[in-house]
């Protein structure tokens, strides 16, 4: 199927690893001009080299924080200068990691009883302000073209907060992010711009994999044993691959999906409970 995005300029934040990298790769294969941005230079270089093989001359990488609005503006300006007006914006920023030094701590770990409000603010910056800033910076180009695709890589907890894991922050901030994209969709529909949000379920990214590996080491078990319970809770009976996430995002960003906007779409093998 021709997705109709050949030649379009796409920005993927957090594009050097995991889901972001899978999305960038899919866009590159579909003929788009792809700009990836993330904080870690070494990850970026490695991913850029991979992408260059698929799409020589059509990829660019920028090392930058995608949570600071001024920095996001600079990334978008550089992307525009390099390839032209932006058509597709993927926001894909992970949440605030409370104790980065502690292996396996994961983003947003903490409880209501223990969490200080400063951390709520930090998570708000990471997840909401970042995606707002990217949309705001790209929307004028999209409006001018009368065509645009904004997609946020969110989390299933936006609709069904996980209460069995002590990860308070995403549970509190993911729903506002999903809601904000729904509201942006309503505002931007007349301009030919769609805005959607992915409710990410159990996808086996590198980050997820290293979490399970860490847990297995901690408990002196194996990844298979640690993931068994989780796998049983996923109706399709397995974790998803980042490429499966990328396939959905690519469709949403395609020319074919112009009528799909304002949606929060679960990609989690049927693991969501809401109707």
């Amino acid at each position, binding site marked *: 199927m021709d997705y109709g995005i050949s030649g379009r300029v796409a920005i993927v934040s957090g594009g050097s690893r995991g889901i972001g990298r899978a999305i960038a790769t899919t866009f590159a294969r579909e003929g788009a001009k792809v700009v990836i941005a993330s904080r870690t230079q070494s990850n970026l270089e490695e991913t850029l080299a991979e992408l260059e093989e698929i799409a020589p001359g059509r990829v660019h990488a920028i090392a930058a924080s995608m949570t600071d*609005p001024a920095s996001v503006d600079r990334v978008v300006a550089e992307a525009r200068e390099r390839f032209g007006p932006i058509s597709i914006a993927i926001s894909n920023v992970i949440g605030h990691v409370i104790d980065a030094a502690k292996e396996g701590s994961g983003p947003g770990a903490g*409880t*209501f*009883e223990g969490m200080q*409000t400063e951390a*709520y*603010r930090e998570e*708000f910056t990471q997840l*909401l*302000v970042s995606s*707002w*800033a990217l*949309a*705001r910076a790209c*929307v004028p180009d999209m409006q001018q073209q009368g065509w645009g695709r904004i997609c946020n890589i969110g989390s299933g*907890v*936006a609709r069904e*907060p996980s*209460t*069995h894991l002590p990860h*308070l922050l995403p*549970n*509190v*901030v*993911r*729903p*506002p992010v*999903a*809601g*904000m994209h*729904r*509201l*942006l969709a*309503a*505002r*931007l529909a007349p301009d030919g711009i769609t805005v959607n949000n992915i409710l990410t379920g159990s996808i086996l990214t590198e980050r997820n994999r290293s979490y399970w590996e860490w847990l297995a080491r901690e408990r002196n078990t194996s990844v298979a044993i640690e993931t068994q319970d989780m796998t049983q809770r996923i109706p399709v009976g397995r974790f998803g691959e980042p490429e499966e996430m990328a396939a959905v995002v690519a469709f949403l960003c395609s020319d074919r999906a112009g009528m799909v906007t*304002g949606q929060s779409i679960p990609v989690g093998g049927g693991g969501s409970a*809401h*109707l």
Partner: protein
Amino acid sequence: MDLQLKGRLVSVCGTEEATLAACRRVLEAEGAVIAEAPPGGTYPEADVVIAVGTSRPGSDVLAVIDPADLYSAWDDVTNAVDAYRAALPRMLAQQWGRFVWVGSSQAKSVDAEADELAAVASLGMLGLHKVVTGEVGPRGITANAVLRGGAATDEDVADAVTFLCSAGAAYLSGITITVDGGTGSAIF
């Protein structure tokens, strides 16, 4: 009906004076005692904490220029969290407590009257309430929201808030009651 609120200490916080006053009035009529938190402070003796989000009619996320406006909406959430957490130790000790947030019905239905910043803040509180419910729900503490829309009066809102504080609402937690006169069109 006896709502069993006699003598319960209630702390109300937020900047929406008229809504706060209506909540005080209706709860006092049920025998609750309104606790006055120091300005900008929290009240750790409260049995009931009611946090009312600031309404910013017509607010539009896309039109926001300064991120400070986003943070200002988020301050409503962190202020509510501060008020909730201040009261939590006592609630845990007595195995009874009520948290109620008053926010915007646009958090559930995009065709509600536009107040996008209030919707964003409210969605944060709805997520928080699920966490609170999972964490301290088994200890007699509930966390619910009243989402205001349409032409709801302050009394309409205060009545729903008061019900959520009552003994009869003990099995409701992590839920929302939309008080919008039926104007929102979403089923789920």
